[in-house]
């Protein structure tokens, strides 16, 4: 049930965003895609989420040919850097969205949806804010709503695109500890994009260092720091 990414490539116009990226991670791992801007980490994440299509390569996860499935079938919860909350819906409706759009046969009854929403808001510690609108929340609160919303669909995989990028340092630190805690509780395979080393090393089980569309090295934070395999990796980590 591990995640196997094999030689994924993607070109935008003539620019090669991904140049054969490969990665293997066990089920339930918390993987950080770390690298400078332009390294292709967000592109890879979006391909995993079904928001972009790869030109070639393959991804297998949970015994599924991942890239052949459209985004809505993957159950890959995606958390955006700018939250992408539905501004015209309350917090509760945002979180309930993934459950409410399910086809008739799979949709839980309204009472059940309400219960799950409350459970999730409890998990992210936003209990009494269900009736508020996103514009009435702080950045940190909005990101927690985004996470609750992604978890509501009981995702196979959780994808986070620099989720704390728009927040200030103190909030970032608090949220990443809390994110790790949520991950451990939910046990879901997570892939997390960041350009911040400290963040990657603090939360991830596996760190994949990316450069110019390729994954240069994958390993535990300790391994990668102790034993950099390429010049780029050692330079990037020494800063």
């Amino acid at each position, binding site marked *: 049930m591990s995640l196997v990414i094999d030689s994924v490539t993607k070109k935008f116009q003539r620019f090669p965003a991904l140049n054969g990226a490969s990665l293997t991670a066990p089920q339930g791992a918390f993987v950080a895609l770390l690298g400078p801007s332009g390294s292709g980490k967000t592109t890879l994440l979006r391909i995993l989420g*079904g*928001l*972009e*299509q*790869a030109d070639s390569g*393959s991804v297998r996860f949970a015994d599924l*040919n991942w*890239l*052949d499935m*459209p*985004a*809505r079938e993957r159950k890959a919860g995606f958390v955006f850097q700018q939250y992408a909350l539905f501004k015209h819906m309350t917090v509760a409706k945002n979180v309930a969205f993934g459950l409410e759009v399910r086809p008739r046969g799979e949709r839980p009854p309204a009472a059940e949806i309400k219960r799950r929403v409350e459970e999730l808001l409890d998990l992210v510690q936003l209990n009494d804010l269900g009736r508020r609108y996103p514009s009435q929340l702080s950045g940190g609160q909005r990101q927690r709503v985004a996470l609750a919303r992604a978890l509501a669909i009981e995702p196979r995989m959780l994808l986070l695109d620099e989720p704390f990028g728009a927040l200030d340092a103190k909030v970032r630190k608090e949220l990443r500890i809390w994110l790790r805690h949520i991950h451990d509780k939910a046990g879901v395979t997570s892939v997390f994009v960041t350009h911040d080393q400290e963040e990657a090393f603090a939360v991830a089980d596996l760190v994949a260092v990316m450069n110019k569309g390729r994954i240069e090295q994958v390993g535990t934070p300790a391994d990668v720091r102790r034993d950099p395999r390429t010049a780029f990796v050692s330079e990037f980590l020494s800063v």
Partner: protein
Amino acid sequence: MKKLRKPTEDPLLLKLLLGAIAIAFVGLFLVLPLAVVFQEALAKGLGPALTAISDEDSVAAIRLSLTAAAIAVPLNTVFGVCAAWAIAKFDFPGKTFLVTLIDLPFSVSPVVAGLIYVLVFGAQGWFGPYLLDHDIHILFALPGIVLATVFVTFPFVARELIPLMVDQGRDEEEAAVSLGASGFQTFCRVTLPNIKWGLLYGVLLCNARALGEFGAVSVLSGHIRGLTNTMPLHVQLLYDNYDYVGAFAVAAILAMLALVTLALKTLLEWRYADELAASHRH
């Protein structure tokens, strides 16, 4: 791997359906009427159409329209520049009210626009008796027509310049003044180059409306054939008298003017998007 549609893209069927609806609607409501104008104008061939346009009364109507526009457009341009200068470069109370007032002709029916001047200058209006005594003709004469035209077109230049100049700020002008430039010099050498495309855009729209205005001018003109009929009014006269070729021939001139206006407008929006008010960038 399978070729999948991006989640933000519509399915092909929907695209074809919406595209067809859009094109059909525009074709039916916009293109057909335009086509009819030219078709009817040339119904009897090019000759009769040209004769209709060069008819004495038609020429008088063309001349009147051009005269009214030639007076109204420059006046409104000066107004627009003054208003935009005052609003963009200074702070004072009541700005919002002023801007709302400037937008007023847009929300007023053209007939009401004509009506208000009748109430002031008409035979039973405020100044009616006075004008009669001094043999001054405002209604049913050029002044009335110019007034109506000025009223309905004065927002155009102002509406274009105000957001543009507010956007552009005061820095450059303040720098010029600190270097010793007079107000007039500052305006000519610093402001004008920055607003020239916006100004042109506003003048273009102002002119198009000035030549095409019907309702307001209709109320004030008196419809005297060959004397107080602008082109749109002359079109009405010919049409009511069943001179269809004549009516559509003059209408065709107006339609061509509209198309030229549209073309220039589009050109300005494409090439000079950055130098027009933000609302025009597509």
